[in-house]
């Protein structure tokens, strides 16, 4: 798909901006070029400077304060490439397209919606954005929007055929056969600016940048996403075929397209027949899966602003002796060749903004000398790490580090054999060292000095050797002498599935007593994304509920309460009847 050359129309470079405005204003024939009035653009500039420039930069080049930390990067408006549009691939967006993104935002990126802005402000902003790119002055760069017909209802019959089309036209090469964004060429994708980019995880439509409704998906298939390898299939597929693909994606997503249904609790399920990890997924059948959102570890040094894993799913089972967890998540590639560890030191990324002198905050040379240099002075020594980051710094991407896209050919046919990541994937379950007595819980990043945690860590390069660590703070990790849990791990079709088993009571460690809520937090490392040590995805604390094996029957209590209520009722009735007996006495003679 990368090879597919998109049609781009460039405006004449010499035409000056003012001249163009003058021309357009005076030529009603070219009416479709609408750049607004001076006042409108002035309004737009005010809004832009307050709400937009911190990411998109004062000149619209996508280089604001936060830009170095964001993946996907903030849009570079000077390019005129807009990802989410209703127009054919490669064309400029309509005003309504831009307006929609401003109002709704782009899910699972740093771009929020701005519903508070007034229509006039949004209109002004749209015109102001257009000033950043001269493409908008060229009337020929415009094509009318593609129409999206009303969505037909979902039909399961289409899925089979759609899957065939999906494979045929090469969707699976990027998005993977199960749509988890793990296609063979997925690790090699870059956008038009040379920045690495990920194929969408089709089984999680709520993360789709262009929206999760059936119409949105149809539109994205039709128009493609400008600036990315995702082409438009307006010509390549008939509308029926496109709707079939939509059905296929919906079949991958399960119940809900737009709502991930994140859980707030993991409920363990009591099982019979012994807990044996050999039983695999079958062991966990019937255990309620809890999908937990993952955020980047952006607190401690070695921050991870764009974790490779968006969400993890966890199930828990238990019997009289043991407790077991199954953690699964989607990963672009299984990285088993490297190593990983929760205590690896990560040098802080030095942002482009960091080269300015005030920007030295995230620890470059000066910071390392300063006593506040928490980032560790290793920054200098560990030059071998530089640029290994998948999402990494643009500059670093091209140099000596393990740039993945250099190995396009190998990985394209080898699938996960293309794993050249320096760090392997890894997962850790985190529990408090002991059940918190009150509301105070350890700090969610490896605990704190008063409230230690235990980490059940598995380097998926060596799943046979799980480790237990004791944490008393982000950097304060020491190997624990507690017994390690039993672990079984597998990677299939873009999904890791890691099984943990441990006895419910184990030494000094956390106990899984019936009727208790045991806090759990997860850490997940995506080796492909160069994650290790503190650079990782984490979750907040979630309680794991271990219900009593035998829950008391509700019937005795029901019967008792109903009897008491009935008795009270009868007493009241009897009392009222007695009090008002005179009326009955009057009736009698009559």
């Amino acid at each position, binding site marked *: 798909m990368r090879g597919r050359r998109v049609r781009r129309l460039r405006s004449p470079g010499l035409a000056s901006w003012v001249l163009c405005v003058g021309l357009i204003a005076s030529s009603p024939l070219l009416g479709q070029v609408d750049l607004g009035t001076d006042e409108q653009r002035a309004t737009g500039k005010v809004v832009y400077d307050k709400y937009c420039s911190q990411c998109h930069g004062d000149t619209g080049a996508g280089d604001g304060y936060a830009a170095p930390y964001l993946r996907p990067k903030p849009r570079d408006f000077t390019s005129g490439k807009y990802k989410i549009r209703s127009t054919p691939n490669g064309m400029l967006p309509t005003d309504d397209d831009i307006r929609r993104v401003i109002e709704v935002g782009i899910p699972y990126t740093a771009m929020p919606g701005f519903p508070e802005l007034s229509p006039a402000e949004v209109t002004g902003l749209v015109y102001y954005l257009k000033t950043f790119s001269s493409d908008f002055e060229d009337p020929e760069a415009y094509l009318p929007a593609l129409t999206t017909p009303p969505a037909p209802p979902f039909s399961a019959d289409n899925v089979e055929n759609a899957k065939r089309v999906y494979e045929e036209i090469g969707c699976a090469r990027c998005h993977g056969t199960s749509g988890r964004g793990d296609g063979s060429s997925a690790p090699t994708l870059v956008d038009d600016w040379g920045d690495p980019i990920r194929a969408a995880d089709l089984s999680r439509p709520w993360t789709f940048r262009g929206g999760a409704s059936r119409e949105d998906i149809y539109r994205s298939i039709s128009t493609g996403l400008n600036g990315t390898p995702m082409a438009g299939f307006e010509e390549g597929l008939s509308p029926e075929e496109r709707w079939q693909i939509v059905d296929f994606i919906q079949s991958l997503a399960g119940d809900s397209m737009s709502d991930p249904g994140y859980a707030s609790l993991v409920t363990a399920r009591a099982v019979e027949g012994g807990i044996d990890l050999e039983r695999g997924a079958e062991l966990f059948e019937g255990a309620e899966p809890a999908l937990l959102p993952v955020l980047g570890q952006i607190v401690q040094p070695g921050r991870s602003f764009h974790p490779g894993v968006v969400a993890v799913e966890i199930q828990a089972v238990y019997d009289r002796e043991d407790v077991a967890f199954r953690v699964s998540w989607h990963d672009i590639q299984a990285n088993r060749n490297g190593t990983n560890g929760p205590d690896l030191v990560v040098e802080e990324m030095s942002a482009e903004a960091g080269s300015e002198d005030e920007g030295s905050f995230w620890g470059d040379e000066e910071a390392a000398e300063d006593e506040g240099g928490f980032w560790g002075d290793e920054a200098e020594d560990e030059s071998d790490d530089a640029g290994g980051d998948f999402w990494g710094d643009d500059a670093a991407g091209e140099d000596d580090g393990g740039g993945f896209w250099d190995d396009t050919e190998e990985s394209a046919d080898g699938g996960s054999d293309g794993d050249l990541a320096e760090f392997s994937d890894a997962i850790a379950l985190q529990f408090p060292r002991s059940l918190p007595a*009150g*509301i105070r819980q350890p700090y969610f990043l490896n605990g704190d*000095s*008063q409230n230690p945690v235990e980490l059940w860590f598995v380097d998926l390069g060596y799943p046979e050797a799980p480790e237990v660590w004791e944490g008393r703070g982000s950097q304060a990790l020491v190997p624990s002498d507690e017994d390690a849990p039993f672990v079984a791990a597998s990677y299939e079709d873009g999904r890791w599935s890691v099984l943990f088993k441990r006895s419910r009571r184990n030494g000094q460690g956390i106990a899984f007593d019936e009727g208790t809520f045991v806090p759990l937090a997860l850490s997940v490392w995506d080796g492909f994304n160069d994650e290790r040590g503190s650079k990782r995805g984490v979750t907040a604390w979630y309680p794991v509920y271990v219900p009593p094996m035998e829950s008391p029957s509700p019937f005795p209590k029901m019967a008792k309460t109903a009897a008491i209520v009935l008795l009270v009722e009868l007493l009241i009735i009897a009392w009222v009847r*007695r*009090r008002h007996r005179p009326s009955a006495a009057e009736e009698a003679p009559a």
Partner: protein
Amino acid sequence: MRVPVTLKVALLTVVATAFYTYVGQLVPQKEVHPPEVVEMSADLTTADLVGIGEEIANGKGLCFTCHTVGKSGALRFPDLDGIATRAETRIAGFDALTYLAQSLYDPESYIVEGFAGGMPPISKPPIGLTDDEIRAVIAYLQTLGGQATVTMDTLIPFSAAAPEGVPMAAESESGESEPPAETSEEGAA
């Protein structure tokens, strides 16, 4: 049929009271416990005290949020390395123990030259160490440039159990204050 008035009134009282108790059970139930006090038995050795003191200094005593050990240059608070040696000569008439105790119980009364002060009395909230905890901290401080001598029997000046005769706050600015309240413990001590 006729319920006596007294019974009715009693019933009303009980029901109203029960209702308010019920309301009280609906709000969040939080029990606030005091910060943990390090329990110290009388048979702790000096070495034990040093260990406990170091832990307190690093932990809830919050000493090293301000102070440093073995650092020089532009400091905002005095460095504590070698404090045990300097403590002997800091204030005329105060031995090292008394000086250390004073700097913990009443830190503002003597401010090391070149520094601005600002240390809170650590026997007071929000830090609020107990006398025994302070005893352990002193033991630890004595190891910084000296030998720990404090035992569980040592009388710590300025502490609640301090006997008369040892230098008291009287020699600092707060003038004519009397010996502290707990004179009753003298007999035991």
